[in-house]
């Protein structure tokens, strides 16, 4: 995502040499800033530290020295137990969730891309209305929708099924996708479309062959953000998939695995660690894209 401002250097010119009180003030302000930042970082990181070290400790060590790192007594046994849990196959849950992420993203693109194009190129009132309608969807708390969605999906015969779940998750991506895509497509010159039309391409063809390839950065943004929200969603799979489907996502599985054992920390910590590991790894690798993606989304608003 080309951030229009990131290229401009916002480095301020080095301050003229200071002396006396002004210099002291400057140093103490810098010290406060550093102290605040380091303290804040500690607050952010200690929970993660606790999670990681305790995932490899026995219950006694967790209870007696929760912050300790007894190198000689660290064990992989409890992490292994999570992976071997006969009631909840975490590796399968990874696979299932990942498949959901892929399928919803593909569907979302197929559904939201074309309509965004129509909206972006449209000049009529109805196009504005359409955009407003989609964007208004952002304000609907999605848990609130779940009760009636159960009813709708039941009528369609899709309740408790993978297609039902995938369709609803896709629908939840519409507001943000359309908002992003439409704004981006407006920055793509119309002349490109017109040239394609002269070459005899239809509108659908023009979109997929000419416009869509140019949307790569914004699509990447949407895919990254949707992937995170699908991976992390709990309440939708909990209610729509339910026990009947026999499928667990990472979150519903961890909820079931921890539920009865919330005081057995040799169950809790390894489960949580394994649940967040993929998302954290994804974050570390994709950090720049995630942050840029979010920024571009907001800057457009």
């Amino acid at each position, binding site marked *: 995502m080309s951030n229009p401002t990131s290229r401009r250097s916002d480095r301020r010119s080095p301050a003229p040499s200071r002396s006396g009180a002004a210099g002291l003030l400057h140093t103490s302000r810098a010290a406060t800033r550093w102290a605040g930042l380091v303290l804040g970082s500690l607050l952010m990181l200690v929970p993660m530290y606790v999670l990681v070290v305790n995932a490899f400790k026995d219950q006694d060590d967790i209870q007696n020295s929760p912050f300790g790192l007894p190198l000689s007594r660290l064990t992989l046994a409890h992490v292994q137990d999570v992976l071997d849990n006969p*009631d909840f196959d975490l590796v399968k849950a990874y696979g299932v969730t990942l498949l959901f992420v892929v399928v919803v993203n593909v569907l979302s693109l197929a559904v939201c891309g074309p309509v965004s194009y129509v909206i972006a190129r449209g000049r009529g009132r109805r196009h504005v209305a359409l955009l407003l309608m989609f964007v208004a969807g952002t304000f609907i708390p999605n848990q609130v929708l779940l009760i009636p969605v159960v009813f709708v999906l*039941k009528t369609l015969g899709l309740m408790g099924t993978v297609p039902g779940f995938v369709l609803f998750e896709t629908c939840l991506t519409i507001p943000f996708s359309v908002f992003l895509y439409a704004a981006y497509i407006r920055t793509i010159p119309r002349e490109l479309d017109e040239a394609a039309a002269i070459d005899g391409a239809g509108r659908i*063809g023009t979109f997929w062959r000419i416009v869509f390839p140019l949307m790569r950065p914004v699509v990447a943004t949407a895919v990254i953000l949707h992937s995170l929200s699908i991976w992390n969603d709990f309440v939708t799979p909990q209610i729509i998939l339910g026990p009947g489907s026999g499928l667990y996502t990472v979150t519903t599985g961890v909820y079931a695995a921890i539920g009865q054992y919330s005081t057995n920390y040799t169950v809790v910590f390894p489960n949580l660690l394994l649940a967040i590991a993929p998302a954290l790894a994804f974050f570390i690798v994709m950090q720049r894209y995630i942050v840029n993606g979010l920024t571009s989304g907001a800057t457009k608003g």
Partner: protein
Amino acid sequence: MGRRRASTALAGIAAATMFMTACGSGSGKSDAGASGGEGTVRMLVNITPNLTQSFWKDLVRPFEAANPGIKVKIESPSSASVDTTLTTELAAGTEPDVVEGANIHPFAERLLDLSGQPWATSAPLADKLAVDGKTYAVPVGVQLQSLMFYNKDLFAKAGITAPPTTMDELTADMAKLKATGIKPVQTAGDWVTGAQISMIAAPTLLGRQPTWYTDVNSGKTSLTATMKPVLDLYNSWLGAGYLNKDALGVKYADGEAAFLDGKAAMYPMGSWFAAAATNPSFPIGVFPIPAIDGTGQAPMGVSPTANYAIFKSSKHQDAARKLVEYLTNNKDAVTTQLKQDGTFRTGFSYHGSELGDAVQGILQQVGTNVGPTGGGYGPDQLPAGYDTQFNKNVQGLYIGQSVPTVLSSLDKWLAAQPK
């Protein structure tokens, strides 16, 4: 270039569609083979520390071996409980073939009538669960609810020679324990607070008013009018420091562990605790919780366990019926379940622990002088969600709410529930 991209997108959509159709057929009730008792039977069960998913799978394995055409799919709740999950599933039309341990009364009309099956009608408490005289749910056994487990060593240390038989004696014993520096009663947060109070209240409520459930449901009486003495007593225990004030922060498992560590002298809990207390480091005793006004035998709060019911919508009714008959009548299957969850049934004795035998003794002693606790069962049942609501409200006692406040907000809630 552009064309390739477009075709990639199309291929992606095609793949997605295939994935969805493939998975779609794998879920829900899809496969045919209704006749002859064949097919896959979906069974929604309770999952607890005693009853794990592996336990259930092992339980049905011999049945599957004996009935080659039938597979049993164990399903665990996706929400906090079987009842909540089932409401979602009923709303969605994805209910299982068989459900274990649900409050079946509200949706009895959706269940298969098993009145014509002698093996079903003869099950323990089956008559009490009947709705309009029809048997829909078949329990495996009975769990005793109004039990007080106690640490014999700590009782001896406080100079208590025999377990109390009246509420006054019980309170006096608490005072003795407290004076000796022993925490008298172990309570806990989670769902435990409300459940324990229901266990403590049952003998008094049932003893005074055997028709309590019907009367509350019809609005003839209220919780304020009937439950106040019990809550006042409980609240006085709390004020006197007989109950641990930090209860709301104690999880169920922590509370159990604290009692088993000898940190408290008494622990009000259902008979399943006998199955959990396998290797205690001190002798554990048990006595029935007395009624407030009482000499003589107080009624015992009980609950049917593992009651199985079959949905009419099931496409595998014959297979489901066979399964339920097996689970509630086969000697091995029944005994395994009884033993696993501290459950009892006359005619099916098993060699349990000393503590288990003591509980069995209490069951024989109370005979038919039993009734429901908490939200109840069968027609003696308060509206869905009562136990959760009760728990939330009585926890208010720990944060300084008064007994009348707690009871009146519960009465308000009850009044607002659809009849």
